């Protein structure tokens, strides 16, 4: 007979302890493995709320007055070539990024002059930037803000940088560009993947 089985039969307290441990392990495993599913549920609910919020006149007023707080809907980002269509919120805090993608508050608002920065999840919370590495030069990125729509065009191949290389979201007044960041490789936060694009059609401009 297995010594472990013999030990358990001889010690009722060990059986009770193992019973509790197995329940804890099972609950933890379900929790860990179900985490991505949970984040997607949170993301879907958040996006439903943001969809309503971004179309509201109150948000437009707040946007124009620049009174946006962390987690407020900011812009809709569409990247047709990789199927991205999600609402970006203000801020890149962990709570804000539960919406999927967030705008770096230190950068200009979408469609404005300068370097507009947006971070997005790659594997959880709807994983909007999951396929960011597949973007190619010339691919179009459309930002729809409460006050207008503008279009950017990818001008450089995606590149991998270290997490502390924040120069990519530093503002540059002489440029009209958009920088997208996400984690790399998938499922890891060891590096960051960066895609940069240049404004090709500003708010109110014809094609």
């Amino acid at each position, binding site marked *: 007979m*297995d010594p472990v*089985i013999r030990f*358990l039969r001889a010690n009722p307290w060990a059986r009770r302890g*193992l*019973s509790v*441990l*197995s329940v804890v*392990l*099972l609950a933890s*495993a*379900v*929790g*860990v*493995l179900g985490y*991505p599913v949970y984040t997607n549920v949170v993301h879907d609910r958040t996006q439903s709320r943001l969809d309503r919020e971004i179309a509201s006149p109150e948000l437009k007023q707040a946007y*124009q*007055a*620049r009174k946006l707080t962390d987690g407020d809907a900011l812009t809709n980002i569409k990247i047709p070539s990789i199927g991205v269509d999600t609402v970006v919120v203000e801020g*890149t805090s*962990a709570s804000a990024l539960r919406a999927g993608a967030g705008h*770096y*508050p*230190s950068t*200009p*608002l979408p*469609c*404005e*002059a*300068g370097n507009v920065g947006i*971070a*997005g*999840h*790659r*594997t*959880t919370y709807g994983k909007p930037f999951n396929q960011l590495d597949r973007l190619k030069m010339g691919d179009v990125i459309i930002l729809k803000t409460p*006050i207008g729509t503008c279009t950017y*065009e990818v001008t450089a191949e995606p590149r991998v*940088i270290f997490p*502390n290389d*924040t120069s*990519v*979201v530093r*503002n*540059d*007044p*002489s*440029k*009209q560009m958009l920088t997208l*960041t*996400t*984690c790399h490789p998938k*499922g*890891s*936060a060891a590096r960051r993947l960066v895609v940069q694009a*240049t*404004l*090709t*059609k500003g*708010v*109110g401009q014809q094609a």
Partner: protein
Amino acid sequence: MAGLLLSSMIGGPSASAETTVVSPETYVGSAAGRALVLRVASISASSGVSSAKLDSTLKAASEGAGSLGLPVFSPNSTKAEVSGDNKNDTKTKVCSDIDLPPDVKAALAPLLAIGAACSSSLAEVVNGQPHSLSEASVLNVDVTANTVLSSPTLAPIATVKDTVVGTLLGGLDTVNKQVSSTNSAVPDLKLDDTIGEMLTRLQSTKTLDLKVGTSRSEVVTNGSTVTSTATSAGGVLGLLPVQLPLAAGGTVTQNLVEIVIGSAKATATYDRVTGKSGTPVYDPAIVTIRINTPTTDALGKVLGVNFKEIQVIPGVTPALIPALNAAVDPVVATIVKACPDAPNEFCVLYGTPFETRIAVASGRAVSNADGTVGAIADAVKIHALKNIGTLAPQLDGGILLELAHAEAGVGGAPAVTNQLSAPGTPDNVVTPDVPRELPRTGGTPWMPIVGALGLALAVLSRRALVRSH
């Protein structure tokens, strides 16, 4: 913050970081020039076409075409385009000879020649300042109808003499005789002899010689000002060039009538700081008709009057030009007059096969509903050799020319800014800092492994518990 960026970009006073942009600045400038539109027989072509444009997205584009609508031996069009800061696209000058379309070449090749056409283009953005420029030109257009005139099967020279002498220069002879009989200072020039000699010489030269200038379009952003300028340099149209003997010997080629088309220019400016456009400016082409007949020269010398030049200014009709009044100057009035069927147009050699009509349009400034403004300097329209079809059926209808057209436009809107705190007090400004690290958006790769391990241990422990019962 964005306001600071924008104001520094447009070169205006630097705003402090407390100003933010609600909507970004937009501006656009465009210019277009055209040296020549030519319609003869079945040919319709534009030559010397240039255009330039730029906008606030730092896109600049320019395009030049030496010739459009005519076959060329090699490309004579250039196009330059850039998008983004500190980029340059320069297309150096390319020229190409122009060939006539095959279907009309057989009929018109001996009569019509069009010179090489050239163009160049530049588009660049330097330190956030877009600039676009293009130039285009067609060198010359020659109508050598004299070969037709001298052809006995098409137009015997006698017919030409009768037509021209009878309707034009014969009249001059009559006038000359009348003047000389009443004014002893004016000699009898015996114009019939001169005319006969001139027509004989005409056979060895061209009928019409057109030299067209360059069309240039440019839009430049210089600090806070966007300026669109289009210039078409006009040209010189020589009608009936003849070789005249020089006193010192030899000959000189002189046009019977020379039509000089001045340059047309249109300019529009936009101030990016104030968001206002300046008053558009246009300089329409002014046409000068030079008459080079021996008669005019002789009478002018005797009477002390310059009959040689008549300036045609937009808005001035033939009736307002004293020299064209037969009572004032019967000689000049015979050569240049108001067209009987169109009093606002000038007719040169009216009633002859070489009748040429000139219509000079004025420029105009336009203001559009969207706030953009523009200036247009309209083309000079010349219908040359209107009745040449009686002598050369291949050229029936004559040659229609539009020269020196220029137009420029600008517009825009400044950035709408929102003051968040008092200017000049940067300490009050709360500007979010650049993060020390880019946010984590990818989780950890160990999570699935930990989850799977936990699940395996839970299963194993449950099995052990079951077996221990």
